């Protein structure tokens, strides 16, 4: 067996496979199918300062090789997480990472501060795709100054590994990643969902309650891979790659493009045991190609 250990800043992962926020619950939902301790890291549901009900139903539309969701960050709030969920997770022997979301800088910092106090949580993933309610509703992640502001503010209150999750709905993803790096991020993860839309032609109605929503799944892989490649060339911090990873080959492609670790999202819905299969598949690939460590394939694309 090859050495699958990889690093995201100070964070050590036993293998590069993590779960994408919002697609794996808190991990416990999948415990019947996989040994959670065989997963490199579990990134839990997006958590906000206050409880959120999320968007009205319908929240889901299927698209060619993908899906659009409009969950809208439904969650019970950080206090509930700290009091009720964290105790159930803290003894799982893998990295548990909290995905932190918000609609103002104060939301983000307050939430990050609460998580900072949790002993067994060594990293947060900052979801900056959320609309900035105070500044006109544009997503935090779409402008460099806003990225610097929110990341800088969280950096001040959070002293463990800070991963910033980027939205792909931008003109120049490399510039955004550099802004996050500059503001103190230890890593960037990408991509969050592409903004998409689906229509029921017969009923002449949108298929989801919010009209537009987040596209994910196999269909987004080419875009995600391109962005990971562009970002990995632009920044010095480690990159976490995701978007449409359905199998080990896909995961390896992201690592070749420059990702130090990967996340699996929508694929969990199609095969709830996919995470450990991907970890095994990466190992097989490394063995077959004579690599001793997974680190040898990070950014190993020959161009």
């Amino acid at each position, binding site marked *: 067996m090859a050495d699958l250990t990889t690093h995201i800043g100070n964070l050590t992962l036993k293998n590069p496979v993590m779960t994408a926020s*919002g*697609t*794996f*619950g808190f991990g416990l*939902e*999948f415990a*019947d*199918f996989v040994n959670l301790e065989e997963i490199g890291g579990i990134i839990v*549901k997006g958590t906000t300062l206050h409880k959120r*009900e*999320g968007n*009205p*139903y*319908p*929240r*889901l539309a*299927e*698209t*060619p*090789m*993908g*899906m659009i*969701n409009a*969950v809208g960050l*439904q969650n019970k709030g950080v206090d509930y997480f700290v009091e009720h969920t964290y105790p159930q997770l803290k003894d799982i022997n893998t990295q548990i990472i909290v995905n932190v979301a918000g609609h103002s800088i104060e939301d983000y910092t307050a939430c990050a501060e609460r998580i900072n106090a949790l002993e067994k949580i060594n990293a947060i993933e900052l979801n900056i795709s959320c609309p900035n309610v105070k500044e006109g509703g544009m997503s935090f992640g779409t402008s460099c100054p806003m990225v610097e502001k929110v990341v800088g503010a969280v950096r001040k209150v959070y002293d463990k590994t800070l991963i910033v999750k980027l939205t792909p709905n931008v003109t120049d993803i490399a510039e955004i990643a550099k802004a996050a790096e500059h503001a103190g991020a230890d890593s960037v993860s990408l991509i969050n969902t592409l903004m998409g839309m689906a229509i029921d032609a017969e009923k002449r109605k949108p298929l989801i309650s919010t009209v537009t929503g987040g596209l994910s*799944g*196999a269909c987004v892989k080419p875009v995600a891979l391109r962005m990971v490649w562009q970002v990995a060339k632009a920044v010095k911090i480690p990159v976490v790659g995701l978007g449409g990873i359905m199998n080990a080959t896909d995961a390896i492609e992201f690592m070749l493009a420059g990702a130090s670790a990967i996340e699996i999202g*929508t694929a*969990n*819905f*199609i*095969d*709830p*045991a996919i995470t450990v299969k991907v970890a095994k598949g990466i190992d097989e690939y490394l063995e077959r190609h004579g690599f001793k460590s997974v680190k040898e394939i990070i950014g190993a694309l020959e161009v």
Partner: protein
Amino acid sequence: MKKYIIDFCVSSNEALGNNAILLKLKAPGQMPEMRPGQFVEVKVENEPNTFLRRPISINYVDRSKNEMWLLVQKVGNGTRKLGELKAGDTLNCVVPLGNGFDTSAVKGKKVLLVGGGVGVAPMLMLGATLKAEGTTPTFLLGARTKDMLLEQDLFEKNGQLYVTTEDGTAGEKGFVTNHSILEKENFDKIFVCGPTPMMKAVAKFAKSKNICCEVSLENKMACGLGACLCCVTETQEGHKCVCTDGPVFNINELAWQI
């Protein structure tokens, strides 16, 4: 209940009326425990237009043959593809999912099981389970027309069967809520699965008579595991997942305007 990902082997695929099929699936090993009202998420293979799994109720479990039955109505690409399955083919299922019907306090009580269209599917397993537990249920099934009534013979084996058809070709003419049995007998509990308007009509009736009533919802699902939060329904306590908090809900939990 522990969940599994299982490659079932198709024993048979029978075409029924109303564009429906009855799939009998053999478990390769021990058949998991499952309760009436639970469902499976099936993976449709060889279908470019079906990316996600499809939720299908457990219609019946024949432990003597180690078989699970699914009653499927062909409405789109995924279900049509299931219609093409042949004996010997494999069908990958995540099973069992959801809460199931609450049968804990019905012993010796008068229980009505109402099914509409392909919503009859979970009622067969529910009826058979109740009967095995010593409570012979009454079934009331509704359909647009005679040919759309499914599995009548099987229901009859498990209790008294009444039917309604909208065109009067079988049973009483009209909707299930018009059936005379509802006035003739006093039921202690009603279980319903079918189109939403039908479920709401039955729920309204039950509420007016103060009868305990459970309905099985069919929201769109991605994971079936309570992870994605796509399948929510509005309840008295806010959004709840139909896949894990449901699919069965007591009508008093829901935010239905009835």
